[in-house]
């Protein structure tokens, strides 16, 4: 019920959680943001103490009092230690590699201990997807948390709210805090497999008139360039010599393949078209050819390699999205 209320009134949630999302840069968990309540085990511990106290009074056991009070003091110290386990922890995010819709985005969180003491058993949980991980942050060090968040649809996927929780050292108290770092992951459209369109040699580029031959016509080896796809590296040849060599296919340099929005059947919806195009980009990239992408209002000139692939997929992912 409270959850629904906070959902509807984000400002109330912001006030309650002590920050306004998204938070840029490194987030430090100051006191205001760390909450602490006893756990069920803590309640059981309190009950134990009560029984010990009554027993000590009844039998006038001085050492019984001493034990009861020592345990009470330990509960108190445990509460402070639990709060300390999260106090002033610094949370920053790393780069999340783009994924295709339907896959899970891998968000990286870095938990910086910012102190000489260990911070064991900290749970990081993505509130939306319930993806979670328990890490020990070493004293003076940084722990990495990878949260796999399902990417449902193309576009930018923001990380949104993450809960950090700990019950260390005694499990009697539960301290937690929410962060909402400014991290996002690019989600490409879900690729749809289909045959590549025929590569038509453009009049502008001149030369060939006929469709290019099959893309698996092996033509020879050439020196590796940084932009070459690892799929085309001649690994067997590399194993024999020290030089990186790339396999060349006939027609690769000559023919230009345009992956054009307009080539798709007219009845196809926007998302289907984008999926189809994404599938084409992958297929074209696999073939090692030069290719270009044309979307309404967007044109990416022919090229090949990982950079071209990334640029095309990003254009597809963000097509029609507010940037």
């Amino acid at each position, binding site marked *: 019920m409270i959850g629904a209320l906070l959902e509807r009134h984000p400002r109330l949630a912001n006030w309650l959680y002590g920050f306004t999302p998204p938070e840029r840069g490194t987030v*430090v968990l100051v006191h205001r943001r760390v909450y602490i309540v006893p*756990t069920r*085990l803590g309640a*059981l*511990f309190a009950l*134990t103490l009560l*029984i*010990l106290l*009554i*027993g*000590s*009074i*009844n*039998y*006038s*056991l*001085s*050492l*019984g*009092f*001493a*034990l*009861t*009070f*020592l*345990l*009470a*003091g*330990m509960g*108190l*110290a*445990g509460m*402070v*230690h639990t*709060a*300390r386990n999260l*106090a*002033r922890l610094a949370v920053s995010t790393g780069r999340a590699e783009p994924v295709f819709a339907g896959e899970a985005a891998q968000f990286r969180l870095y938990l910086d201990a*910012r*102190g*000489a*003491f*260990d911070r*064991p*058993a900290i*749970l990081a949980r993505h509130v939306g997807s*319930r993806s*979670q991980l*328990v890490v*020990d942050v070493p004293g003076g060090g940084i722990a990495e948390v990878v949260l796999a968040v399902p990417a449902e649809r193309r576009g930018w996927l923001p990380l949104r709210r993450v809960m950090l*929780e*700990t*019950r*260390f*050292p*005694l*499990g009697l108290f*539960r301290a937690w805090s929410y962060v909402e770092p400014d991290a996002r992951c690019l989600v490409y459209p879900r690729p749809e497999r289909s045959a590549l369109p025929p590569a038509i040699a453009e009049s502008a580029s001149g030369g060939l008139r006929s469709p290019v031959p099959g893309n698996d016509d092996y033509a020879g080896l050439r020196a590796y360039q940084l932009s070459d796809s690892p799929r085309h590296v001649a690994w067997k040849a590399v194993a024999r010599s020290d030089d990186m060599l790339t396999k060349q296919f006939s027609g690769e340099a000559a023919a230009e393949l345009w992956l054009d929005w307009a080539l798709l059947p007219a009845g196809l919806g926007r998302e289907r078209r984008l999926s189809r195009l994404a599938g084409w980009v992958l297929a074209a990239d696999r073939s090692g050819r030069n290719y270009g992408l044309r979307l309404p209002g967007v044109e990416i000139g022919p090229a090949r390699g990982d950079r071209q692939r990334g640029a095309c997929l990003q254009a597809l992912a963000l097509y029609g999205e507010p940037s």
Partner: protein
Amino acid sequence: MKLAHPLSPERRLMSARDLAWLTASLAIVTAPHALRAPWWLTGLTLCLYGWRLYCTLNRAPLPSRWLVLAFALAGLLGVWLEYRTLFGRQSGVMLLMLFSGLKLLESRTHRDAAVAAFLGYFLIVTNFLYSQTIPTAAAMAAGVFAITATLVGFSAPQRAAPANARTAAVLLAHAFPAALALFLFFPRVDGPLWGMPRDAYTGLTGLSETMTPGNLSQLAQSDAIAFRAAFESEAPPAAMRYWRGPVLWDFDGRTWSGASGGSTPFTPPRGTGAYRYSVVLEPHNRRWLFALESAARVPEHAHMTFDGQIYADGPVRSRILYNMVSITLPEARADEQPRWLERALRLPPEVDPRARELAREWRTGSHSDAEVLARALGFLQRGRYAYTLDPPLLGANSIDEFLFDTREGFCEHFASSFTFLMRAAGVPARVVTGYQGGELNGADHILTVRQSDAHAWSEVYLRGRGWVRVDPTAAAMPTRLQAGLSGALPQDARLPLMMRADMEWLRGVRSQWEALAHRWNVWVLSYDQDRQRSLMLSLGMRSADWRNMTATLFTVLGVLTLALLAWSLRRITRPDPVQKAWQLFCGKLAARGVERAGHEGPRDYSARAARALPGSRRAILRIASLYIALRYGARPSRAGTERLRRLVRRLELA
């Protein structure tokens, strides 16, 4: 759907390491009980612990709930057969011990294990029902530490065990100040809150209300401490150390028993040889308090009977401390009521004819009671009696048999026979039991009186002098007073280890130890409502009621928690001031539309910003170069940091 919470103890299974810690902790806290328990119960509990370990080590399945239940029922039946009750103190403790094994056996998750660990706390506190000495406290402190380390291990399963043990030690160290504050200021209530089980106080040793040949000599074989007395100045000489306990009037031929005559208004005796001292009395589950003869005051919550016994308002069931004044050389007071003198002459008919005959001879041959007394003492001195802890069994005419046949006995035989002879000779007499002597500790001038100092003597009523103490044992065995029990007994007699005279160095060690134990008793174990009140008053509190105490307690706890919080944040680095100033600088530039790109270093960024905002070019470049020098330079200076902060604060972009 509720997702499995990886930190919730209900979901996490116990690992082999967790189990090892838990079992070890339970073994520590169960060990003292195991020594007291019947052998089959100790064996069963150990088997349950072992079974659980076996299951984890061999990946065997845990026994089913039904099997565990069957064990529980079998254990219950066994305890019932052993003690004929399930709700007594002893049987309750035994059941708790059994349950620790059963709970361990069925523990799968961390939650079960935590419950078993909490059971360990109960086992610790029940140990204190039997013993609250320093060694017990130390052993149980080890138990608390082990349980704490176990709990820490549950909440950090991936962390190394030594690190978890260190955390447990830090936790306990942090708990200590709060525990001390609670111990001192938590308003104490006098127990018990409800009726105790009938066997709650068994096992306490001490004098009994009656005296039968054999029961004192049995008590004298115990090393247990009866009480300790701390004298304000010198302690009285050994021969003066008669600690008065129950006074016995009636004799049935075998057993002496007390008379209940009610209390009389107490009139302190006058005389010389006053001693002021405080007594820490061990619980003995009877009402009397011991004081040096003759008591010149009555402690609080106590009264004095007409025959000089001090009775507390209730049985002494916990260690108590009281202050006393005694007069060792009181003036004569011959004011006993005739009915009591008459009672002090009564004898059972027809027993011990030879003793009666002897007494009749003394009576006819003497002119006064004092002369009878002298003859009797002479008879004992010449009688070549032997002093022994193992007196032979006596028949129906116990006095005759001791005086004329066996001639071996302990103080109760001497006191009993002497009092009989006096009565038979027409001199009013009664038996007094208590303690005689005690050992003066060289370390702190505290006199320790043990059960082995239990003694019995007589008092005779002489006209004009009143009740006079006569110690027939001392008459027969003069060394008893000077050297205590060990001096009076033959060297090869069975004696408690600590009482042997030939171990000087051991006695030295023991003196130090006793001094420590006394302080422990006074400051830790006897801390009660009264001492709490006097502490509050000495702290300047006007009234020491529970409201004041609670307020003090919460103040102290609040301050301690804040101190702990401050400590917890102490070692966390603050944001670097240089970095903070730089971020402020970037923020100011960003507000003017020059946002720093992720890849841009300070040099490139400031150069770009200077181009974009030519009006502030100089200031921007100056700040950037200062920042670079401070952040990446070899020797950052405080003054430089200050200058950077000032520059950034004052920066106003044109």
